[in-house]
C-alpha cells in the first residue's frame, strides 16, 4: 500500500502511523455535553466505501495527512495536510 504525502511524495505504507477516521478533527467545543464527546471519541460511520481518515507521516515529514480512500478497494482518492486542510 502506498500513500502520496503532499510534501514527500509517493511512499510506502510502512512510513505512516494510522489514527482513525477524520472524526478526530472535529473536536467538540469546551463545555460540550458528554454525548458529543462519545460521538467524537467512539462512534464511527465506519463506511464500507469512501472514508476520510488520518495518517501520520511518522518516518517522514511528521505531518498528519487527511486521506480520502476507499476501504473496500483501498483506492486512494486524495491526500492533504491536516495543517492546511480546506474543510
Amino acid at each position, binding site marked *: 500500500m502506498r500513500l502520496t504525502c503532499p*510534501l*514527500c511524495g509517493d*511512499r510506502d505504507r510502512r512510513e505512516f502511523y494510522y489514527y482513525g477516521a477524520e472524526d478526530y478533527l472535529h473536536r467538540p467545543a469546551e463545555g460540550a455535553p458528554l454525548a458529543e464527546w462519545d460521538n467524537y471519541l467512539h462512534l464511527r460511520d465506519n463506511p464500507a466505501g469512501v472514508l476520510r481518515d488520518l495518517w501520520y507521516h511518522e518516518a517522514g515529514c*511528521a*505531518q498528519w495527512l487527511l486521506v480520502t480512500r476507499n476501504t473496500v478497494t483501498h483506492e486512494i482518492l486524495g491526500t492533504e495536510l491536516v*495543517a492546511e486542510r480546506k474543510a
Partner: protein
Amino acid sequence: MPELIAKSALEGRSVTLGNVTLAEVAVGPITSLAVFPAGGKAVAKGLKVLGLAMPEPGTFAEKKGARIVWTGREQAFLMGVDAPPLEGAALTDQTDGWAVLSVSGAGMADVLARWVPVDLRLAAFPVGRVMRTQLNHMNVVILRIGDHAVEIMVFRSMARTAWHEIETAMHMVAARAGVKI
C-alpha cells in the same frame, strides 16, 4: 574543572567493501529553523547573508560550506555554519542529535535498496534532493549529494545500528557480485 572531550557517535570510522564506501562524516553545526506563521519574510532576510533561502520541499542547497536542507513543513536544517541571527523562526541546535553517514560508490543504490523503502533511481531522486524516510526501522534524512553518493542523517543513539545494517548490506551485495546468473 572537568575537561570535556567531544566524541562523535562512531568516532569517524570508515569501511570500503567492493565498490561501496561507508564512513561517518563531520558536517559541522546543525540548526533547525522552524518558520513561524507569517515568519517567512523575516527568515528569508536572515538567510540572505548566507546567500541561502528556505528550500523547497525535498531539496537542499549549498553555498560556501553552508547547506540548507528541507526537513519538514516550514522547517529546514542549516548545516555547516552557525545560524545567523534570525527573526521569524524557532532556532534549535540539532548538532549533537545526529550522526551523519556517507555511503558512496557505484553500488550505493544497491546497498541502500536493502533497507530504504523509496525509489533511489537517479531520475526519481536526483542530486540536490533530500528525503525523510526509513533505513530499516530507523527514521533518517537522506541527501543525494552525487550520482553515486548520499549522506544519511540518523539519530545519534542509533548510529551503531545504522552502521551495522549498512555494512551488512554491503557484505551481501559484495557476495552477490561474485554470483553468475
